[in-house]
């Protein structure tokens, strides 16, 4: 791997991976060298490793759990050459970025002696602000996936990278004679400047070659909409926080669309009573954004345009926004009243309002949204437009993206097709016939991370490097760039998209590191790179780069970029735009009137997106934020529709549209639009690994041949069979209990009095222990008003605390192990309910019911008031769980550690004990982080700072809904929140005095719609 033979700033230990990799081969059983320094990580009674794939398949591979009792004298394996910048047993943090639909999400990754174990958001990155989503959190698991592709094969011949490079070079040269007329590339949409350069180089070398970009659920429609409205494909950047009134036209902007993490942060900040915004969501499926809405207007996706036009008409007619007159159409149907109210609200908030359109909606809707924002004077205030930094090929819908390529393939006009887009054979509409034509391509080259359908059909397959192993770069929506730096040498033989394209650009031998670095040297306006040899020299010996000042002035800048994870240079300024209402009107007119009948909506799955995360066990077991369904997908439909079709949850249904059939379970979702069936895609792939195979059906066959990905004409009939759906939450109503409280802002006043019964001191026999003298009194506050229920905290907790995946079978037995669950409750009619999400982990009661029932003192209170769970003392009576009113304790019914590949063992967080069979476990407030902070603070004789000890959940939360800190510090945020007027204690009447306080969710409904 030439690119990785070179050092990474502050990262030499990563390169040492080669060393411990050989150690692994040499002695697979033994943990890698550097781990040996970890007192907590060595093989011991509680053992190591978990997540046996056997268990994922449901087989109880726990026999022999009685084994791990004898402690062998294990080895202490030091470095041969110390890795500079690495203190064994002290984790380092390195900035990098992951791609989200081509854009950068800035990350900071924790690494133990060169083993990345935990992904967190980069506070300074515009698309993260410190937050992450469940998917980003789970990416680290892929790195260690023993089932990932390794090596390079050409027609069943295994090749070294050198050989592969040579063959690619030869292939490229062969295309020079006809200028690459028969050379095609199919790539992921990406904002990488380096890849842009390489594409340019390649097109200079092969003028007649072409790059197409494909991902099943791109933002093509959005850019197309911008093209319609403003004449060129721009990215709309929404300042959600600046808007008082927001209308979402099926835009799931808090979870999927735009910069969800930034949106979430900004939106949450506006959900505090002081400066409440108001959110209207018009959507078919129940989304995270819908759950956060003040008014959720359920309608089929096809009817969204009609509603938007109704609003436009109102704005034009009643509120004097004449510009919208040609675009509007009088309201029809059930939502007329709503349209009027929404329009009035928007009009009142000119310049402080915002209209967003969902990625799935046709370009016309995006254009209309743009027009409305324009008319409302939101331009430049709540929405700005930027030249898209993402290469999106032809852009637009499926046909305009893939149509040309599909035809060429069918006509055999392509000799070489290089595919770096994820599994097009699975995601592309069957009408395009890729499945048939692709295998005919003479040399089809596929770069992929895992075995999949496209890989199977390819002649030439290249194993792709994980982004934590690869050099690269990405831009955020606003143009801010981040250098993607590897934290570890590849665990297997693999390469990167940069290296692959470089091979066609004729610079393959340079390697990604050089290419990326030199590219940035040029962009930053530094002179030409020093001759490679010197460059290698400079970097190759760690000593030089770390001792004293680097020789090359560019080094300084480069190191800055890497350590900050940000490159501010070269970010394009906002574009000035002029709306072309005519074109918008024409586009709207061009949209066919919504057809009657049952609508099929093929949507990206909340966890697997288009299916690329199908093999990620964390995401598979991560409960869908709305349905709480794990491991598989289901056809989601409204209670009324289900009744009409005679379908109940768990019924297997046969869904047919346009001659294509799929069979899968149905799941009734309260609040889903009637006459519409939501079908999360990405499951049931033809080629799957152990994880993917567990469950799920492929929804793509029902996707229309062209965008939008929804269409009427679906037929559904129950097959009579039943499917057991592993849903983690059994009951979605509160039974009138004060569990997750929500209140209208207007009624917050009287609510305060009722809240007094849910907080404060209570009569008790034993005087409460006094913690006021302690230096720290840890506590947590969860603001339900901020929480959007995305569930990032759940996966963050899983990654931080070595929480095992138990498999569908065990989830069905309600034995899931997530310490932190996000409960979701519905209020009101099942047809059109409102929902509240409530993250719930151990609340660390001061008078803990779990403690006094434990016969062996395995769970007791710490001097700082933490409810400690001592795994090694636990004998497993499970009495504590029985007596826990919150039911937040989790029990290792089987040996969930299993017997896993060494690669998965080294994913463990060495700071957290891996629990054995028969042991109870629960949230510890991330005590390992507290203790680490405590020790480093006390070593230099100071107190723990406010943001030093932050639990994984609070760290990950994009909405900052979870706040943790020292209650004995009156200035701390958590203290203030505990004193907040909205604060209440869960199950306060039990007198458990929880340390985690909740803040009532505030709703801001429009009185006119009351």
């Amino acid at each position: 791997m030439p690119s990785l033979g070179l050092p990474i700033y502050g990262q030499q230990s990563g390169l040492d991976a080669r060393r411990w990799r050989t150690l692994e081969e040499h002695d697979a059983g033994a943990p890698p060298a550097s781990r040996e320094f970890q007192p907590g990580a060595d093989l011991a009674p509680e053992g190591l490793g978990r997540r046996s794939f056997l268990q994922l398949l449901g087989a109880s591979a726990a026999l022999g759990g009685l084994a791990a009792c004898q402690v062998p004298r294990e080895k202490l394996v030091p470095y041969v050459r110390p890795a500079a910048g690495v203190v064994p047993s002290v984790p380092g943090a390195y900035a990098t970025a992951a791609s989200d639909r081509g854009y950068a999400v800035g990350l900071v990754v924790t690494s133990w002696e060169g083993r990345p174990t935990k992904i967190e958001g980069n506070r300074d990155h515009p698309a993260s602000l410190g937050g992450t989503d469940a998917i980003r959190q789970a990416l680290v698991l892929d790195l260690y996936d023993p089932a990932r592709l390794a090596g390079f094969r050409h027609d069943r011949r295994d090749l070294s990278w050198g050989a592969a490079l040579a063959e690619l070079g030869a292939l490229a040269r062969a295309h020079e004679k006809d200028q690459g007329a028969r050379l095609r590339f199919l790539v992921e949409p990406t904002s990488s400047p380096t890849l842009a350069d390489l594409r340019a180089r390649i097109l200079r070398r092969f003028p007649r070659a072409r790059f197409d970009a494909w991902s099943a659920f791109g933002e093509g429609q959005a850019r197309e909409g911008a093209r319609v409205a403003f004449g060129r494909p721009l990215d709309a950047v929404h300042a959600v926080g600046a808007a008082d009134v927001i209308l979402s036209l099926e835009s799931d902007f808090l979870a999927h669309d735009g910069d969800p993490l930034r949106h979430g942060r900004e939106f949450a900040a506006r959900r505090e009573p002081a400066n409440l915004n108001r959110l209207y969501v018009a959507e078919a499926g129940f989304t995270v954004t819908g759950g956060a809405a003040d008014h959720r207007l359920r309608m089929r996706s096809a009817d969204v345009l009609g509603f938007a036009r109704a609003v436009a008409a109102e704005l034009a007619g009643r509120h004097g926004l004449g510009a919208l007159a040609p675009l509007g159409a009088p309201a029809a149907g059930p939502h007329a009243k709503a349209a009027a109210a929404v329009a009035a609200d928007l009009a009142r908030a000119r310049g402080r309002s915002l209209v967003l359109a969902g990625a799935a909606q046709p370009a016309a809707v995006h254009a209309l949204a743009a027009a409305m924002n324009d008319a409302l004077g939101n331009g430049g205030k709540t929405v700005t437009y930027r030249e898209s930094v993402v290469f999106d090929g032809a852009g637009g819908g499926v046909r305009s993206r893939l149509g040309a390529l599909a035809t060429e393939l069918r006509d055999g006009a392509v000799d070489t097709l290089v595919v770096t887009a994820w599994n097009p054979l699975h995601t592309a509409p069957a009408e395009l016939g890729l499945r048939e034509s692709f295998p005919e391509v003479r040399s089809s080259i596929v770069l992929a991370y895992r075995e999949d359908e496209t890989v199977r059909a390819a002649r030439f397959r290249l194993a792709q490097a994980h982004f934590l192993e690869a050099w690269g770069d990405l831009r955020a929506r606003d143009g801010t760039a981040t250098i993607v730096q590897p934290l570890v040498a590849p665990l297997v033989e693999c390469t990167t998209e940069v290296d692959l394209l470089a091979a066609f650009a004729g610079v393959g031998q340079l390697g990604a590191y050089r290419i990326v670095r030199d590219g940035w040297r040029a962009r930053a306006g530094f002179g030409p790179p020093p001759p490679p040899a010197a460059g290698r020299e400079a970097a190759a010996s760690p000593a030089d780069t770390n001792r004293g000042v680097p020789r090359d002035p560019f080094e300084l800048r480069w190191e800055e970029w890497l350590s900050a994870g940000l490159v501010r240079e070269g970010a394009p300024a906002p574009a000035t735009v002029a709306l072309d209402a005519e074109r918008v009107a024409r586009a709207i007119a061009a949209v066919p009137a919504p057809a009657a009948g049952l609508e099929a909506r093929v949507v990206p799955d909340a966890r697997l997106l288009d299916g690329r995360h199908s093999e990620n066990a964390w995401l598979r077991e991560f409960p869908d934020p709305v349905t709480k369904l794990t491991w598989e997908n289901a056809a989601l439909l409204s209670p009324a529709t289900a009744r009409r079709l005679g379908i109940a949850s768990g019924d297997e249904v046969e869904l047919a549209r346009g001659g294509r059939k799929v069979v899968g379970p149905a799941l009734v979702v309260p609040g889903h639009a009637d006459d519409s069936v939501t079908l999360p895609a990405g499951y049931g792939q033809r080629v799957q690994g152990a994880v993917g195979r567990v469950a799920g059906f492929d929804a793509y066959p029902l996707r229309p041949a062209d965008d939008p990905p929804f269409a009427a004409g679906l037929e559904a009939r129950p097959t009579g069979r039943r499917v057991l759906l592993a849903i983690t939450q059994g009951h979605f109503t509160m039974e009138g209990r004060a569990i997750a409280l929500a209140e209208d802002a207007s009624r917050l006043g009287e609510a305060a009095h009722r809240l007094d019964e849910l907080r404060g001191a209570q009569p008790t026999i034993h005087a409460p222990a006094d913690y006021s003298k302690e230096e720290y009194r840890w506590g947590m506050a969860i603001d339900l008003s901020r929480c959007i229920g995305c569930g990032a905290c759940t996966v963050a907790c899983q990654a931080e605390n070595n929480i095992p995946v138990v498999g569908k079978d065990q989830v069905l037995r309600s034995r899931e192990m997530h310490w932190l669950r996000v409960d979701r409750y519905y209020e009101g009619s099942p047809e059109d309910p409102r929902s509240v999400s409530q993250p719930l982990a151990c609340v660390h009661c001061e008078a803990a019911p779990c403690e006094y029932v434990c016969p062996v003192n395995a769970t007791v209170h710490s001097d700082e008031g933490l409810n400690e769970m001592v795994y090694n003392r636990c004998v497993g009576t499970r009495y504590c769980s029985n007596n826990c009113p919150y039911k937040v304790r989790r029990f290792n019914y089987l040996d969930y550690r299993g017997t896993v590949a060494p690669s998965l063992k080294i994913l463990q967080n060495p700071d957290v004990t891996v629990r054995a069979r028969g042991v109870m476990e629960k949230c510890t407030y991330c005590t390992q982080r507290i203790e680490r902070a405590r020790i480093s603070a006390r070593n230099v004789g100071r107190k723990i700072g406010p943001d030093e000890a932050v639990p994984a959940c609070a760290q990950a939360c994009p909405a900052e809904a979870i706040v943790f800190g020292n209650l004995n510090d009156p200035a701390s945020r958590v203290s203030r929140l505990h004193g907040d007027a909205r604060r209440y204690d869960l199950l306060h009447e039990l007198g458990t005095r929880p340390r985690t306080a909740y803040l009532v969710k505030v709703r801001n409904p429009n009185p006119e719609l009351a």
Partner: protein
Amino acid sequence: MSTAQKTLEEVHELEGPPVLVGRPGDRALTESLLEPVLGRTRRGWLLLLLALGGGVTFWLISLGATFAIGIGAWGNNIPVAWAYDITNFVWWIGIGHAGTLISAILLLFQQKWRTSINRFAEAMTLFAVAMAGLYPIIHLGRPWLFWWLIPYPSTLQVWPNFKSALPWDVFAISTYATVSFLFWYLGLIPDLATARDAARDRARRVVYGIMAFGWRGSARHWQHYRIGYLLLAGLSTPLVVSVHTIVSFDFAISQLPGWHTTIFPPYFVAGAIFSGFAMVMTLMIPARRLLGYRQVVTERHLENMAKVMLATGLMVSYGYVMEHFIAWYSGNAFEQFAFLNRWEGRYRAIWLAQLFCNVVAPQVFWFRWARRSEVVLFVVSILINVGMWAERFVIIAVSLTRDFVPSSWANYAPTWVDWGLLFGSISMFGTLFLLFLRFLPAIPIFEVKELRRELEHGGPGVHDAGPGHAVEEVRS
């Protein structure tokens, strides 16, 4: 003679049947009572043993699975972390209460009719407690660490938590098992000596000789023996009450709706006696038939036990009523929901079965014919056994399925291992009991002899006595 017959019938009418039919000589009595022990092995006994052997195998397999796979081999989950395991435990412990109760309390109350059935009941107690004692260990996630519940100076310097009800259990169960055993064995010693002396072959004589520790019926021994035996009875009486009280604390001290109930201690003790008597009945009726104990275990015994079952059954029913009343009266929504859930919830059928078996069925015992009909007694006693198991399941598991936070509600379904442990333990219990019947005197011979003396003491025996006398004798 005819007068004697007549008076005897009158006596039956007035007092119910005698506690001892006829006046066999001591030697005759000894031979008849020792026949099952010293006589040849019966074929029926062998067949029964083989049949139960199958169940025991199932039991062993289930135990093996539990240890090898872990508690995950069961249907337990979160929230239902206790289910069949603790249900079986409480059920067996409850059954284990009749023995000591019959032996001790009835002894203190000078109830003559206890005499011939107490050993029987005590043995049953021992085996039931043995079955029960297993669950607190195997229900642990890490059973090989069970000894952490015992207070001993460990290098960890950590002690058990005496605020938890589980260490209380450990002490209560082990004490109860020990005391029951001592009580039982002390009672056995004179009869072992009898067996030693009555046996013909040397092997038996040696074995029983060793077990009898050299008892020679010395009056000097009898003096201490009787006082000691009485004292043990006196100690066992509060003990037997305390044990199930403590078992009920496992639930009463928690705060789970359906567990957190102050009436539990008396209600559990009553239930224990209820199920215990039912089990004695279940075992006694066939044994009485097969082993020809009719003479010493008379209708009088059956009838009195039926009365006790009726009484305790009513107490248990009262418990059910009170639970519901308190739930309603407390005005606590969680409590109220927990009890509504029994009527309307998913496990309704089990709750209704429990009501039928424990509340309705025993009511037949208001009628004398039912109290004296072996068939009715047998059927009803079986029903009560089932009903009491259901009661414990409803209290333990069903309460857990629906607690405070609705999001964590979940249901419970047993696995084959759960069933194996239930039916297996029943088979094991039966096996132990069969062995007891075969190898140890199941009827306390010396006490029967004493009883006979006492009956004769106030004058000649029932048969040739005037009604007045007879009435006294039999009442005593």
